[in-house]
């Protein structure tokens, strides 16, 4: 996935001469090599800032106002908290001006959820989603590239888009054993994901009985959980990439299932999928899927902080299996 991400960013830098990528330690390639070689190719447009997220994000806002298209990298998701007021300001500026003019920009929230360098501060799994910011999370390189293209398009039109990157997926090749199941081809030119697309991992033979709605690391976890269930073909995994609102695609998909597991990698109480439940619970006439009439449950990460050296507090395969069992009774 990491290589597709680099390529997508490079592609955008090549085609948008006013795009600038700013962050901390991005010139040398970044902590996860996502910006590997980009500074060499575009020396004046891939820039290191000192480690202060307030001024990094503030600069991003100013850059956008000056007519640049900024991509602001937050090197570890936790550090967004360090610049939170400026991030909130990026989100509110459009409203504050009565909607007349946008301050389009892209945030790349790196170092999210389970990762190689552990502990709470490098595996942050809660998200701030104020109005005015579109938050998306892709589980694989193919969708990332398609989604990044959309993010660029939306930011050019004045929207603020934040892409959340799960560390554990960056270099993931295998899904089960050594199947290379998570390697993807880079998408064709012109393939662009809409915010409202979701992606179903199912069987060629038709829809299953249970839908597991998830995103990011949760997609891999859920696919692995599925294989351990008695009837994997009964379980479809839906990758819901938009987190800041309920995508149309999710409503379209869930109508076909009577059993739904929401598998959220964020901490309970601050987990994006819960924010969609109100809409999903509405009747079909009102744009929902009558969720209350289905068997459903919510699995999340624990509402605490993540200890160093263990993945104890994250959403895991057993959690998803338990969820599937709960809705299958």
């Amino acid at each position, binding site marked *: 996935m990491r290589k597709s991400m680099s390529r997508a960013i490079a592609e955008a830098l090549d085609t948008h001469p006013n795009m600038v990528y700013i962050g901390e330690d991005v010139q040398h390639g970044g902590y996860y090599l996502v910006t590997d070689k980009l500074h060499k190719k575009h020396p004046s447009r891939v820039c290191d800032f*000192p480690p*202060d997220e*307030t001024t990094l994000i503030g*600069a991003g806002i100013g850059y956008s106002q000056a007519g*640049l298209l900024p991509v602001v990298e937050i090197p570890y998701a936790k550090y967004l908290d360090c610049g939170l007021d400026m991030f909130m300001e990026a989100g509110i500026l459009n*409203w504050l001006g009565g909607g007349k003019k946008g301050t389009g920009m892209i945030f790349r929230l790196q170092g999210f959820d389970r990762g190689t360098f552990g502990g709470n501060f490098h595996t942050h799994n809660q998200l701030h989603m104020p109005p005015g910011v579109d938050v998306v999370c892709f589980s694989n390189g193919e969708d990332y590239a398609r989604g990044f293209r959309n993010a660029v*398009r939306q930011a050019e*039109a004045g929207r603020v888009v934040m892409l959340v990157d799960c560390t554990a997926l960056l270099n993931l090749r295998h899904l089960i054993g050594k199947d290379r199941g998570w390697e993807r081809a880079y998408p064709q030119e012109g393939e662009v994901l809409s915010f409202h697309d979701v992606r179903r991992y199912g069987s060629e033979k038709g829809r299953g009985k249970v839908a597991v709605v998830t995103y990011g690391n949760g997609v891999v976890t859920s696919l692995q959980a599925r294989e351990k269930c008695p009837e994997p073909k009964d379980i479809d995994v839906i990758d819901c990439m938009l987190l800041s609102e309920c995508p149309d695609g999710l409503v379209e998909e869930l109508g076909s299932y009577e059993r739904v597991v929401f598998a959220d990698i964020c901490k309970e109480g601050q987990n994006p999928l819960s924010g969609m439940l109100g809409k999903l619970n509405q009747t079909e006439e009102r744009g929902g899927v009558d969720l209350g009439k289905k068997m459903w449950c919510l699995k999340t990460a624990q509402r605490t902080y993540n200890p160093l050296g263990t993945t104890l507090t994250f959403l895991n395969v057993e959690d998803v299996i338990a969820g599937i069992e709960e809705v299958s009774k």
Partner: protein
Amino acid sequence: MPVKPLLKSVISTFLLHYHSRVASACGNGFYTIGPCGEENLAAAALALDNDRDTAALHYRHLGISLMRGWTSRSGGMYDDESLKSLLLDRARGYTVSSLDPVTSGNHCCLGGGELDFLVTSTLASQCPPAVGRALGNSLAHSLPGVSSTSLAFNKRSVHYVTLGDGSAANAHFLAAVNLARYAEHRSFKCPVVFGLSDNQVSISLPNYGFLPKLLDSLGIKRFECDGNNLEGVYEATKQAVDYSRKTQKPSLVHYKGLKRRFGHAATDRQTAYLSQQEIKAHVEADNVERAIEWGVRTGEVTYSEVLDTLSGLENDVRKAFDAASLEPKVTERTAVMAQASQPEVATARMLPFPQSANRPTEGTAEGRKVRLSERRGEERGK
């Protein structure tokens, strides 16, 4: 300096605040944070090139906003109609009319021009983006493949941002100055000018003489003046703006010795932390009176003319509030929700997800079988 227009801006600043209090008392006004005591900062606007310099003005700096707006709107002719339209726009802000050109009735902010940037009601957060504008603009103009005419700002723009002495304690100001100084050290162009108005109090917390120490420690090029003196305010601001434009380095103007009048806002309980003598001293430190005395001393106006101007403007401001308070307010939820973001660019949905004809879905048992056999095929082919 254009004496009459300056006087009119100073007087209008006071009158707008006065009427915002009246409007609030009548239930028609929703913002009463004052500019009182800081009216004479209006002269700072004349030191900016209002056609190319950007400004983000702290909420007490209504005087600067008025003078700048009037200069732009009237093309420097300072006709009365332009001023009246500005007074109406300000009144719209206070009465949250949906016709307010700055926020469409969502808030009360100074601004309205293409080169004006909005300041929220949290402190000093306007500072980092101002540094961003300064840095970003220089970068933008230097990029090949980006045409200068497509950019928002002129290549030689200076970026002015103001705050009060209370806000100087805020991390956002300190961080912004730090980045500007760092940029200077690294020889990145950063023509930002911080305008700091000093009335020695931050709502109820006096400064205790700390600000001069803080400013000394910042290491930023500094220009100082008496904030009550129109000519001094103009001179110091001009020097800072010229310095930053010429050297492309950051600077700061310290407007000293201001006295805050009538409290922070209508809700402020000044008597709880200021003595009667202190409050009386503030009442007597009347900047509008000082400005009028100055104007008369220049010989360009007489007291009798000023009296006429005052009653004329009082009438104009009252009419502006009367009109604005009758205008439609924000009443539609869908409209406010739509203002949270620029409209989404329509992107065609990808359903059904493209998968190459003979490749089963990734992550399925069938998919794995296909890939395993592909890999064996690759290995055999080597």
